[in-house]
């Protein structure tokens, strides 16, 4: 895969549009994710953040517009193919394989990223090409020693970490994190903020988040989505100072 030129965006969204009947959920959205940055996407409930994420990962098809990933147009690729390119995603509601152990969950991601899933012979748990990277990413995500625990019995915070381990196993070129702070307590949120700050060293992050403290602490740039339309993009200071953003979203006290 050719290395992208410096500062050329990893993810480049141009003129994306999606409507459901009369409702325009995504209205001419253009957005860049540059190497090394955390780009936060904020906006009130119903602004169309989830719809936008679903179009980027390939779960729903936009009506118009184009998405480039590392220079390649990915409009015709399905969600699995986009994931294999290194577009790693976490879900708003933690999404793991409940009856699998932590290790099996991450092994699944390693296997998926390898593209070689049709192996029928070797027991997966004896396959060091799966177990070794999996254990590495489990430790990276802060779950060391928990690899034999069934995912269903993990705490909410641990499940978040498991999702991050699975994202890391995809050898990601970009992260799409959908409200990772949701449901985390104060301490858990602080811990996760630390983990996200380190994640950016692996790949840039498009961060959908409601927790403004986390956004202001982490983001290099912020885009504000209101009624499916991006009303502003800029640095933390620019967004805080933007009168339109204050009026429509942040409120006067921000």
């Amino acid at each position, binding site marked *: 895969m050719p290395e992208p030129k410096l500062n050329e965006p990893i993810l480049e969204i141009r003129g994306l549009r999606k409507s459901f009947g009369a409702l325009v959920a995504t209205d001419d959205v253009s957005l860049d994710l540059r190497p090394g940055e955390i780009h936060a996407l904020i906006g009130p409930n119903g602004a169309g953040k989830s719809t936008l994420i679903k179009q980027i990962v390939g779960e729903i098809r936009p009506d118009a517009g184009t998405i480039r990933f590392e220079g390649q147009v990915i409009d015709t690729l399905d969600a699995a193919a986009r*994931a294999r390119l290194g577009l790693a995603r976490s879900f708003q509601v933690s999404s793991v394989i409940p009856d699998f152990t932590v290790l099996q969950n991450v092994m699944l991601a390693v296997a998926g990223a390898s593209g070689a899933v049709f192996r029928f012979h070797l027991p997966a748990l004896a396959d060091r090409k*799966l177990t070794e990277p999996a254990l590495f990413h489990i430790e990276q995500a802060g779950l060391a020693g928990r690899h034999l625990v069934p995912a269903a019995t993990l705490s909410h915070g641990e499940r978040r970490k498991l999702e991050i381990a*699975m994202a890391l196993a995809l050898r990601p070129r970009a992260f799409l994190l959908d409200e990772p702070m949701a449901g985390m307590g104060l301490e858990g949120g602080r811990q996760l903020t630390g983990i996200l700050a380190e994640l950016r060293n692996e790949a840039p992050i498009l961060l959908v988040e409601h927790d403004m403290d986390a956004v202001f602490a982490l983001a290099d740039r912020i885009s504000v989505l209101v009624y499916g339309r991006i009303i502003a993009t800029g640095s933390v200071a620019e967004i805080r100072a933007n009168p339109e953003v204050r009026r429509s979203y942040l409120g006067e006290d921000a």
Partner: protein
Amino acid sequence: MRETLNRDTAINLAILALLVATAIGAHLAGNGFTVTLATKAAIFGLAGVGLNLALGYGGLISFGHAAFFGIGGYVTGILASHASTGMPVTSLPFTIMGSNEMLGIWPMAMLAAGLAALVIGALSLRTSGVYFIMVTLAFAQMLYYFAMSWPRYGGEDGLSFYVRNTFPGLNTFAPIQYFAICATLLAVALVFTAVVTQSRFGLALQAARQNSQRTVAVGIRPYAIRLTAFVLSGMIVGLAGSLYADLNRFVSPAMMSWHMSGEIMVFVILGGVGRLCGPVAGAALFILLEHVLGGISEYWQALLGLLLLAIVLFAPGGLIGIVTRRGRHA
């Protein structure tokens, strides 16, 4: 984790040992009928093992697996009847002669069932939930009515072939020898299932059952995984159908009816969905009940229904789940 694995293995071996011991004991006692019952249990168990790969491990609730059972049976019956007349089955696009050798018949039965599973699976796996159940049922019923109205091979009367097919070095007419063939194939299918479900593929299959969206998000297409499992499942059931045809030396459309699909499903549910030897235990129990209760009353299936209800409500892990005291499998 390792402990429960060992316990599962011990139970699986115990079930097989019990089946084999029953057959050998009956043989020594000169009770050929019981040997045949044990053979039937092995064959039904094999069909259940096949369905379990799709239903238990893959979560694909197929209500049409009788189609593959029947196709395996009909391939066997058709080849055997042509072997006795000496006429080729077909001469276009190439000549296929009849055969009365099991070693030639089994691959043909599995191939035909696998091809049917590929077509049926490719279409039905585009749906899910209750639609999947209905589409698989519809395909099986289509084949059922096709067999009913195909006079060349007996139509609704079915097709008899009088002489059991042969296996090199064995007398397939001796009940215990035919049992040995069926039990060996059952063991092979069990080993195959154990290996496949623990492989990368098995990991992906079981992941897709539990959380399809998550499976996609790590770059795996559930459709291709499920279709592969569906075809493998159909091939195993096709082999069981072939053995069943040889057991009775008779095939009929009933092998493809929804009633048969339901029975195979019952084997899996009775024994334990997604448990390696569950379907074998389920099939054995089914045959036992059919024989014991069926001798008391012709309405024995009402009791079977009650038992099934009790298992679904109170022991979703089936017989194996009761023994291992675990409700779910990982």
